[in-house]
């Protein structure tokens, strides 16, 4: 349904000296994937790997440097104002922090009515009905209408955020670390709510997270990002046997009850996105590094039709 093709996003840094070379931060470095209707696609990676930037480009909160986001074959970054407004009805984003995603000066009712006013949907009574229906859908009720965000708990806030995102009946929702700021018990509630809403409204999710447990539980397919690139992509069962050394290390770090599992510990820090290593970006930390990794960028290998990996080990 949505195709992301060779997405790049560079941020130019101001020069330190007048004659010094211009540096840029490569936040997203050639990302491609396809979202299929009704699926939940997980995007995992450490902070700074470019996963949130990718999400914000898809909803066009920021413009990409190059590459395309295609919806039904049309490039959304080339939309004019009117087309963009229609696009914004179809795609929504839910942010990480439920404390920052609600305007503290507005009531729940106002927050839920806002999207309907922006898109001029229905008269006041129809809007009211839709707002109340939506509140019931996310497990709240009419008593919340007149409340302000500071009167709500974190979980309740996130329910309001989700309601505000879904009230336009979008086809597609980007959930940017949607549950990371919540307690574990509340996380589970919100995830189950999202699953139920997905079924009811036939939604497609792009689920951005650093929490592998959550992603494995919640997603159909997963892409692992490292320094702005997708290093491995596949279905959840594919990634039970990860192929890329980075994914292996990442997945072995999930705490399990089994004490005998060996954990691959990576050495070093993630290199800065303004100085991405030549060749394979992971070669500075890879336990299986070869000479060619330092010069040659690995290409994408299709292990199966679903499972792709970017590593010289699979040449």
């Amino acid at each position, binding site marked *: 349904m949505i195709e992301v093709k060779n997405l790049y996003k560079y941020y130019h840094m101001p020069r330190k000296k007048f004659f010094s070379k211009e540096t840029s931060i490569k936040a997203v470095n050639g990302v491609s994937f396809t979202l299929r209707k009704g699926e939940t696609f997980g995007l995992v990676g450490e902070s700074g790997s470019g996963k949130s930037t990718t999400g914000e480009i898809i909803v066009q909160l920021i413009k990409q440097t190059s590459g395309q986001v295609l919806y039904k074959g049309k490039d959304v970054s080339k939309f004019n104002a009117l087309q963009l407004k229609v696009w914004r009805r179809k795609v929504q*984003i839910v942010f990480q922090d439920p404390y920052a995603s609600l305007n503290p000066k507005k009531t729940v009712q106002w927050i839920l009515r806002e*999207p309907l006013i922006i898109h001029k949907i229905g008269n006041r009574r129809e809007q009211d009905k839709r707002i109340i229906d939506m509140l019931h859908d996310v497990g709240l009720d009419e008593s919340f209408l007149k409340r302000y965000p500071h009167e709500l708990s974190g979980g309740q806030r996130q329910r309001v955020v989700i309601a505000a995102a879904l009230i336009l009946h979008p086809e597609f929702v980007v959930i940017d670390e949607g549950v990371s700021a919540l307690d574990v018990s509340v996380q589970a509630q919100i995830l189950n709510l999202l699953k139920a809403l997905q079924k009811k409204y036939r939604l497609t999710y792009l689920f951005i997270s650093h929490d592998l447990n959550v992603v494995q539980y919640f997603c159909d397919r997963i892409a692992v990002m490292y320094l702005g690139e997708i290093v491995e992509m596949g279905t959840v069962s594919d990634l039970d046997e990860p192929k890329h050394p980075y994914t292996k290390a990442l997945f072995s770090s999930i705490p399990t009850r089994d004490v005998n599992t060996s954990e691959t510990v990576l050495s070093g820090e993630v290199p800065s996105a303004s100085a991405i290593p030549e060749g394979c970006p992971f070669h500075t930390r890879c336990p299986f590094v070869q000479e060619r990794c330092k010069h040659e960028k690995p290409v994408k290998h299709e292990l199966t039709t679903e499972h792709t990996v970017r590593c010289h080990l699979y040449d």
Partner: protein
Amino acid sequence: MMMKRRKSIPFHIGLTIVMLLFLMMLISLFYTPYDPNMMQTNARLAKPSLEHLFGTDNFGRDILSRMMQGSQTAFLIGISSVSVGLFFGFLIGACAGYFGGWIDELCMRFIDALMAFPGILLAIMLITVFEPGIKNTILALGMMSVPTFARIIRSSFMQTKQFDYVKASKAKGAGSIHIIFKHILPNIVSPILVAATLSFSGTILAEAGLSYLGLGVQPPDPSWGRMLKEAQPYIATAPWYVIITGTMITLMVLGFNLLGDGIRDQQDKKS
């Protein structure tokens, strides 16, 4: 996030002074003990007495009546020039803070140019180029406070526009006007309020200064600044004239300063 509704003592003192002065201004609209411009040549520079509570000036005019009439001018000029300053300051600050980039650069260099002159000099220049009078005084003093407002509003905008609720609203298709007035403005009211209150006292002081120089409000409209100037020659013979006028100006400035500080303290407590 418990909000304490306890206000500071300075806030209450400031509020009381401002309310009393405002009440005096309101009364003067309907009633003054004497006609403020009526001269009683037989009672020039009369000492404060039951007849003339604050005494009379060099033309035998009742000082209390003129003082009350003068408070109208003070409030009129204070409120209007703060509004003028706020209007242009908001326009410039909001554009600069919201859009950023070269618009920000352009607006801020303009503000820098305004700030390069001391405010009162700028006002004097504007008034000499045009002509003295209440309207031009208001405009000049308004211009004087534009940079302060523009900077405060710009930084509040830059801070607030990064919040997720602004981003989320944008993702829902909201336009700039909607975001500025529905999302950002309601959340930056308190810093603007503090700046406006503090600037109010600055404006009143500046107006007194201008009138003292004869560039502000023109006779026969009474103004505290000009009264101070008129009182100066009689500082030895009729000290009450200077003292009372000076005290009035001080009270007004003090009241608004305390009020502004009080609001700011309260705001700091909340955050």
